[in-house]
């Protein structure tokens, strides 16, 4: 399996350069294949165009064979452009699908020809049965050793191994998978690099995570989302209205001609042209491309949504539950200040603090050493050189430190140090206690340093906010999205960090139960809640949340409870997920509005053209000055087809997203797509008509 590098880079490559020639060629072929009426039937609007194209082709053919008196070049041209209209819509869909397909192909490569080593009773010592991976059934135990691909989704029940998950995450650094805890889930198609594990299969055949992902990126199993279904009903309703409008126009025209005794009744070709121009072909042709592109944008952020419904719900979310650690703050607390006791110098305190932390490999410990060096240039010393022994942190003493030849140095929580000093008959000074309390009030963590004689002072450990997170929250607030910080800290600390980060609310001393309760409470007040989680104990809350993003590195239970999986395991991405969901809905709305606003101009092009022979007065409606009626009809049809092509990039890329209040977004988009949609066709049809006059 020498595909790791290629597979790893595939999703990111798609992002950098849009479409290559091969993709375009595949999309063209697929567009032609989609001319099949059965695939057209899935989209009522485009099916009407398809029927119209067949009808006008028939008229053109009959005209060419002199079977009917009328007919001429107009029929032919209109028929041709109606076929183009159908093809353009097909092309948009095929193009959206092709972007996912490249990823799917590389994913599929990971799945091939794996042989599974099945352990009948799950004992490592057993003799293995070799069977093809796709014959593994749920509940069977499989041994995976260094160099093997993991045959199916499952849970590690024994052993520990480093696993290359780049096939699905695109991240080449291996991850550790081991039995028990939150790192026990493995994904079919990933590869064990070292050691061995015994995996119990949890996914059914053909339903592994990888398979689902392939189906999703290909768009094959894409089911229509609720809003998409509702929109299609409306579009079908509108098409029906316009079908009636054009169908009744024939009798109206016959009546006008017979009453007026002038002109000719409107031709079938003109009626079909009018119908196709009026029905919302732009949105009808681009609707599924927009949906696929929305999923695709998620996937390119390395987020796999288990359904389009989840992407849609992401746009509706108005409460974000964000874990403090890793999302709002950098993972670890850092020492920011030394507060010496009254008769101790700051350098003295820094020195003791550094000594007590030299062998402390926790991030907090490292940050103390770093701060001591930054403040006083204290160089790192070797514990052995000093003849010191390191005393690690233990749950009983809740302190760590060193025992130096000159005596012990300890650091720890205030109450632990108080006890330690008391046991040596030493008091804990009130001034130090005051500092401890003041640091706690500010949301920091006070660490007291003491030697055998006295308390030397306090180290101020602090959560450090991620860069730009505050601005992010301000943006979200402007969009009407509340942010709630979830933390295990005490309320005092939580409040201080919440204020610093600018979140709207916080849940302190959070437990999985309280998290679940909070989500339910928000939902009962009509909010839609999104959260990210990775632990097995997050599963109930993930299941309750409207949008639940599970970290790929997390527990299998969490992944199953969520409706999205973030392959990068980056909880901050929740914000991007919401934005992507909103962007997809906005794109759908913008193209719909544009499509319907277009109709007005088309009436001005076609009505005078169709009736001017009966009522010459109606040439007053020809505000575009299109003149000859046949050209006007054709210009409207051509414009209608070209608009689909012109909007393909918008459909795939999505409308420009800005973090603004709804009223503001609405005003901007209405001007751009509503008013723009009213005016653009007047210009476009006129230009096409001028070109037609040149050539026809």
């Amino acid at each position, binding site marked *: 399996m020498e595909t790791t590098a290629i597979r790893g880079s595939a999703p990111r490559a798609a992002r950098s350069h849009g479409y290559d020639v091969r993709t375009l060629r595949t999309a063209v072929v697929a567009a032609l294949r989609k001319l099949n009426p059965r695939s057209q039937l899935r989209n009522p609007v485009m099916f009407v165009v398809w029927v119209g194209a067949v009808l006008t082709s028939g008229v053109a053919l009959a005209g060419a064979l002199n079977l009917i008196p009328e007919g001429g070049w107009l029929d032919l041209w209109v028929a041709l452009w109606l076929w183009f209209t159908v093809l353009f819509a097909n092309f948009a869909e095929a193009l959206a699908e092709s972007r996912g397909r490249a990823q799917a192909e590389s994913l599929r490569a990971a799945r091939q020809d794996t042989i599974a080593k099945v352990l009948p009773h799950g004992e490592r010592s057993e003799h293995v049965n070799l069977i093809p991976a796709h014959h593994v059934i749920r509940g069977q135990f499989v041994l995976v050793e260094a160099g093997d691909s993991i045959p199916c989704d499952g849970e590690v029940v024994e052993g520990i191994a480093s696993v290359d998950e780049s096939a699905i995450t695109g991240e080449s650094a291996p991850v550790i998978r081991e039995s028990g805890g939150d790192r026990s889930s493995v994904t079919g198609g990933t590869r064990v690099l070292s050691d061995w594990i015994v995996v119990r299969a949890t996914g059914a055949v053909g339903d592994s995570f990888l398979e689902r992902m392939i189906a999703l990126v290909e768009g094959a199993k894409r089911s229509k989302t609720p809003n998409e279904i509702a929109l299609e009903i409306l579009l079908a309703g509108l098409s029906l209205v316009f079908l009636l*409008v054009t169908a009744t126009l024939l009798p*109206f025209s016959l009546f006008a001609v017979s009453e007026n005794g002038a002109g000719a009744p409107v031709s079938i070709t003109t009626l079909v042209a009018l119908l196709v121009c009026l029905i919302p072909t732009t949105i009808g042709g681009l609707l599924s491309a927009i949906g696929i592109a929305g999923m695709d944008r998620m996937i390119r952020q390395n987020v796999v949504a288990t359904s389009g419904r989840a992407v849609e719900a992401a746009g509706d979310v108005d409460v974000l539950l964000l874990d403090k650690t890793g999302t709002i703050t950098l993972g670890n607390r850092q020492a920011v200040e030394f507060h010496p006791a009254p008769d101790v110098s700051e350098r003295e305190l820094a020195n003791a603090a550094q000594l007590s932390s030299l062998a402390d490999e926790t991030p907090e410990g490292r940050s103390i050493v770093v701060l001591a060096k930054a403040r006083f240039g204290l160089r790192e010393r070797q514990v052995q050189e000093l003849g010191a022994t390191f005393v690690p942190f233990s749950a009983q003493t809740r302190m760590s430190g060193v025992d130096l030849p000159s005596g012990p140095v300890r650091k720890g929580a205030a109450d632990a140090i108080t006890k330690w000093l008391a046991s040596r008959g030493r008091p804990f000074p009130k001034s130090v206690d005051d500092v401890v309390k003041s640091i706690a009030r500010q949301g920091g963590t006070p660490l007291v340093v003491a030697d055998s004689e006295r308390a030397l002072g306090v180290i101020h450990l602090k959560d450090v906010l991620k860069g730009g997170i505050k601005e992010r929250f301000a943006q979200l607030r402007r969009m009407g999205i509340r942010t709630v910080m979830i933390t295990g800290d005490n309320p005092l600390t939580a409040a201080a960090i919440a204020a610093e980060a600018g979140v709207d609310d916080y849940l302190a001393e959070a437990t999985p139960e309280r998290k679940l309760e909070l989500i339910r409470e928000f939902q009962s007040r009509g909010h839609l809640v999104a959260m990210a989680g990775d632990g097995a104990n997050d599963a109930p809350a993930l299941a309750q949340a409207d949008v639940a993003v599970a970290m790929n590195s997390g527990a299998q239970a969490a992944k199953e409870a969520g409706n999205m999986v973030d392959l990068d395991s980056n909880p901050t991405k929740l914000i991007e997920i919401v934005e992507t969901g909103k962007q997809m809905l906005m794109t759908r709305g913008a193209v719909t509005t544009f499509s319907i606003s277009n109709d007005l101009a088309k009436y001005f092009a076609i009505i005078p053209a169709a009736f001017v022979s009966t009522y010459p007065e109606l040439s007053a409606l020809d505000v575009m000055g299109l003149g000859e009626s046949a050209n006007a009809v054709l210009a409207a049809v051509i414009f209608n087809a070209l608009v689909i092509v012109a909007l393909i990039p918008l459909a795939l890329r999505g409308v420009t997203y800005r973090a603004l209040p*709804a009223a503001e977004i*609405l005003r901007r988009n209405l001007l751009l*797509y509503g008013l723009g949609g009213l005016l653009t066709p007047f210009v476009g049809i006129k230009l096409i008509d001028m070109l037609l006059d040149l050539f026809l």
Partner: protein
Amino acid sequence: MTTFDVLRMLLQFALVLALAAPLGGYLARVLGEGRTPFPGVFAPFERALYRACGIDPKRNMDWRSYALAFLALQLVGFLCLYALLRWQGSLPFNPREFADVPAPLAFNTAVSFVTNTNWQAYGGEATLSYASQTVGLTLQNFVSAACGLSVLAALARGLAARGAEQLGNFWVDVTRSTLYVLLPLALLLALALASQGVVQTFGPYVEAQTLEGGQQLIAVGPVASQVAIKQLGTNGGGFFNVNSAHPLENPTPLSNALQLGALLLLPAACCFMFGRMLGDARQGRSLLAAMALLLVPLNLLAISAERGPAPARIAAVADTGVGFMEGKEVRHGPAESATWATWTTAASNGSVNSMHDSASPLGGGVALLLMLLGEVVFGGVGSGLYGMVVFGLLTVFLAGLMVGRTPEYLGKKVQAFEIQMASIAILAPTATALIGIAVAVLTPSIRASLQDRGAHGFSEFLYAFASAANNNGSAFAGLSADTPLLNFALGLSMLIGRYLVAVPVLAIAGSMARKSPVAASVGTFPTHGALFVILLASSVLLVGALSFAPALALGPLVEHLRVR
């Protein structure tokens, strides 16, 4: 168009709105909060009524029961009225001894009054007995308006509910609408009209000696009582054939102003009631603003078209110096007639004080357009606003996506079922009108009913089916509508136009009632404020324009372009 004409219209409009606001509050108290005026007097009476009819006023109905009760009452009303008309010759209060109404006309008339359309294929004073007019037509004038109010109240309850099934009790709504709203208002207006000289008598027609010495029979009857509810209930079916153009139905400028104001009063008040029942007055006001935004410019257009000066090509025959006077009453004048024509087609009233067939092409076009928009610019009592709410749903659905959320109205998600029902409600009248006209122009026997040829003939068909399918009921005149085929076709149009809108609206109410509202934030699509008002008005205009642009082009527009 003079400044006076404009100011008078705006003043009348402002007065209607000023009266509608408190009336809307009263409606909300009566229908929304179940409060009874003078409870000591009326409550026992109301209770006795329920007992007598075997109604349990505490029973709360889901949308299906509500719709069934509504349809049942309408069916019984239709059957009674039909029977009354068919046998009026053998019944009392028939001083002129009019014969039984023939079946096609009786069907058409009964449907017309039950559906609040009040299309009149008959001449009242030459066809109907006093019994038919009072017990038959006037009764349905009350009931059909009360039904409209009830359906609207049910919709408001559905939108305001949080995860409930029930929409209220139809029987209670209809009873209270009639008892506490329509009856007192009609009584007041009838007295005011009588004071202006509108006739009210059960006595026989009056024989008079003309100045030339000839004999004249002057038709009279219980007119004031019928005219009051005809205007208030957006019914529009006049006592006399020429409706409120008749000197005994609308004798003075004051009676004209009263009737004009009355026809817009309840539809406007409905908006205030709606806002109050939802607990958010802004919602009602923005719907009202969208209606006004459509009405006022069209009204000005109609006034300027009717008031003249006449277009050059027909100035020689049409210019009187004060505007187009053909078909208008001198005591009302062209401007007031234009305002009446606008309001009566905006509100689904359909009464006339001039003959719309003789209006200028643009004036007649305005009346046509207002009906073709679906009778949602004020519209019928209750029905106008619930139609506007359907447009509101479509508007938030189409444009609401652009704010990046799935669409919601008043906190409730608008989903496939609501869109399905809204599509039916908008499609049904449109399809009926289009198909109706197509059938009419293709059927030689129906074409024979036309008075005029060419584009104007087409306008006459367009007007008739627009009026019937949207339950307006005003007539263009010029079309001899009392033929069996037209009676049936127009009757069918009225049925579709009423019930294929009202029942889907109730279904929407039921579906919305079950939903829990989502919380509002600055991320929510705002359904109040100027932007939404403009957007809603544009949607109404766009849907109407897109559906009927070709038809309007072939009728009034061609006529206008010819004479200009």
